[in-house]
């Protein structure tokens, strides 16, 4: 597998591959961002010799797209989008596959003043219907003029577009056959928008994060200059999906704004062959790569004896983002990859969200992670993170510092009433700064819920300050982070409530931290059945329904009727349900076989 790639094996691309080494072009100053629009950044990057390399699911170099070529293709594509009847200011849904077509379309929009909305692609087995429902809701919310994607998803896209009432559906091949229309080039100005990102909100109510040119330019500059301190010899690697902020901003827009080369492996290819990630990084001597904790976990479990054949000594930034930083998982990765020369000082915990373009804070570079061990009882009962040297892991909790906010950005931890809290006091994290979104697209209610008049935004995360650095402890919102994916519990509950004889309000979904820092998704379902076999069958059917709709493995726990807590306004309180379940105040119904008792036992042990 490895030997297939040597830079020359990829027919016709050998020289391009060499050209894409991140070389400093003579007479051409490098700039770590500092542009006022994305198109200005690409105009500059196109003068150099760097760009994007795309690797196949089996690790062969498939496409080489220099920034110069990307710019050319984007300009041509801009003319074709105009020919398809898409006007300046329109929104276009583009399936964000990891490949040159998506890149060309995204940047074509930048040159034509069209607002791109990157869309996911289907990842789940049997997930067609759920996928179509999801992207149809996104297209509807963005009022897109057209949907664009690869030929093999044409059927999916057409169905979604029909459901959403979108008039134009195009494949990249169809777009290529259109003539270029003159006068299409009218790049976004610095005071205009850049793109809309759908990584927030449930399937039925997706929220589009509207990012301006000002915000994305500020954030990419912060990432390049401050967070990662990108160097001329850096070469990035990414298997992150480009429809998420970490993939799009972290590993497409930022590297481009800093003229850094990126090697890509598509997310589904990583999911099938996690070790290919490390093999390719070893071959290409990549220096920068990010993953959620679960990615490190997966790779460490699969690498086995292969670690000693790899050389990861060039890897200087191994960023962690997208889920809670789990020190024990990272430690296991570092141990497994020590034979490959992996340096644990490369771990870079960081904190961010799509609403802030991407990055909010980074830990210190080239220093060991700052791990804070705190007293579990004080954390739980008093909301304080007090240091503890108790060796009993049941008595302590371990958190990791995510560093200080980017220059020009502010962060504070506040109580329920918005009053600033002191060091080690756990509260709500509010942020402010130039990277912030303009708001949720055409959704003033949702925008007003998080963005305040004083310029601060409520992140929905909880944490505390430690020597001025931010430590994240969890979420105030009910959002579930599962394998780096954001999952809205409403989606799980809705799917489960479709199962007979369950009704609306019978189900509560939340995450529990299981052994080894692995998140478990728990679904409590109120059950009126009495027959053990019927009850077991109900559990299986709920599990299957959740799987089909959301693609998540979960633990189904049947509980007595009327045991789930509701607020005075009649809304399900998931956090209370979770707390009551853990405290044994909601008891699983007794059926032969497991029904959640072991979950309570494991967490309370």
């Amino acid at each position, binding site marked *: 597998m490895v030997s297939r790639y040597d830079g020359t094996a990829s027919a016709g691309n050998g020289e391009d591959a060499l050209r894409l080494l991140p070389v400093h072009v003579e007479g051409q100053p490098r700039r770590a961002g500092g542009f006022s629009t994305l198109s200005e950044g690409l105009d500059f990057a196109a003068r150099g010799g760097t760009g994007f390399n795309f690797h196949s699911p089996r690790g062969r170099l498939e496409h080489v797209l220099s920034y110069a070529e990307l710019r050319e293709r984007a300009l041509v594509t801009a003319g074709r989008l105009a020919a398809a009847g898409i006007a300046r200011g329109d929104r276009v849904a583009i399936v964000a596959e990891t490949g040159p077509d998506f890149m060309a379309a995204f940047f074509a929009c930048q040159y034509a003043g069209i607002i791109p909305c990157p869309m996911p692609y289907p990842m789940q087995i049997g997930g067609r219907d759920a*996928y179509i429902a999801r992207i149809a809701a996104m297209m509807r919310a963005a009022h897109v003029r057209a949907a664009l994607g690869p030929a093999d998803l044409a059927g999916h896209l057409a169905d979604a577009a029909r459901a959403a009432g979108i008039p134009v559906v195009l494949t990249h091949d169809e777009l290529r056959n259109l003539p270029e229309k003159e006068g299409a080039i009218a790049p976004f100005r610095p005071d205009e928008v850049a793109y809309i990102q759908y990584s927030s909100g449930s399937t039925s109510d997706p929220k589009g994060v509207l990012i301006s040119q000002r915000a994305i330019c500020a954030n990419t500059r912060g990432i390049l200059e401050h967070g990662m301190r990108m160097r001329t010899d850096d070469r990035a690697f990414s298997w992150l999906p480009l429809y998420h902020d970490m993939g799009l901003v972290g590993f497409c827009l930022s590297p481009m704004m800093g003229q850094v080369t990126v090697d890509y492996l598509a997310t589904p290819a990583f999911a*099938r062959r996690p070790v290919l990630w490390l093999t390719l990084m070893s071959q290409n001597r990549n220096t920068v790569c990010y993953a959620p904790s679960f990615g490190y976990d997966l790779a460490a479990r699969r690498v086995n004896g292969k670690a000693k054949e790899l050389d990861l000594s060039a890897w200087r930034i191994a960023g962690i983002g997208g889920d809670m930083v789990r020190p024990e998982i990272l430690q296991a990765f570092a141990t497994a990859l020590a034979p490959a020369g992996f340096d644990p000082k490369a771990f870079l915990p960081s904190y961010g969200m799509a609403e802030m373009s991407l990055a909010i804070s980074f830990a210190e570079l080239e220093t060991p992670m700052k791990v804070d061990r705190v007293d579990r009882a004080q954390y739980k009962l008093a909301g304080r993170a007090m240091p503890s040297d108790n060796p009993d892991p049941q008595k302590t909790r371990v958190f990791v510092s995510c560093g200080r906010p980017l220059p020009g950005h502010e962060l504070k931890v506040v109580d329920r009433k918005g009053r600033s809290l002191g060091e080690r006091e756990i509260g709500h994290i509010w942020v402010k700064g130039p990277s912030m979104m303009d708001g949720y697209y055409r959704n003033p209610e949702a925008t007003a819920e998080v963005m305040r008049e004083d310029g601060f935004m409520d992140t929905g995360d909880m944490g505390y300050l430690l020597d001025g650095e931010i430590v994240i402890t969890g979420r105030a919102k009910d959002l579930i982070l599962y394998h780096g994916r954001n999952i809205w519990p409403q989606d799980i509950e809705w799917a489960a409530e479709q199962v007979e004889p369950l009704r609306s309000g019978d189900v509560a979904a939340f995450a529990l931290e299981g052994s080894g820092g692995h998140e478990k998704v728990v679904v409590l379902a109120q059950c009126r059945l009495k027959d053990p076999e019927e009850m077991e069958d109900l559990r299986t059917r709920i599990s299957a329904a959740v799987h089909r709709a959301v693609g998540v493995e979960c633990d189904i726990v049947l509980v007595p009727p009327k045991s789930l807590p509701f607020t005075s306004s009649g809304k399900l309180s998931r956090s209370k349900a979770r707390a009551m379940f853990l405290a044994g105040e909601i008891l699983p119904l007794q059926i032969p076989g497991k029904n959640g008792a072991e979950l309570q036992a494991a967490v309370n042990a």
Partner: protein
Amino acid sequence: MSRSREEIFEKLVELLAPFNPEGKELHPDTEIAAELNIDSVGVMDFIMEVEDEFDIDIPLNVLSETHTMDDLVRVVAERIS
């Protein structure tokens, strides 16, 4: 190399065994992910095994329309023939 549908089914059952610890009986109409409650990582692992065993590639659009064992048998049969 052509294999009969029965042979493909048997091979799939064998490849699925590690993801089916409860030894649930598999039928042509068994829904792979939903009924076995395999997590998404496990499914991808299994699909990789299938791809390697039969030396085929199963694209995402096809995978998204694959629900049952029988669907998967058909996907494999179409690609090895």
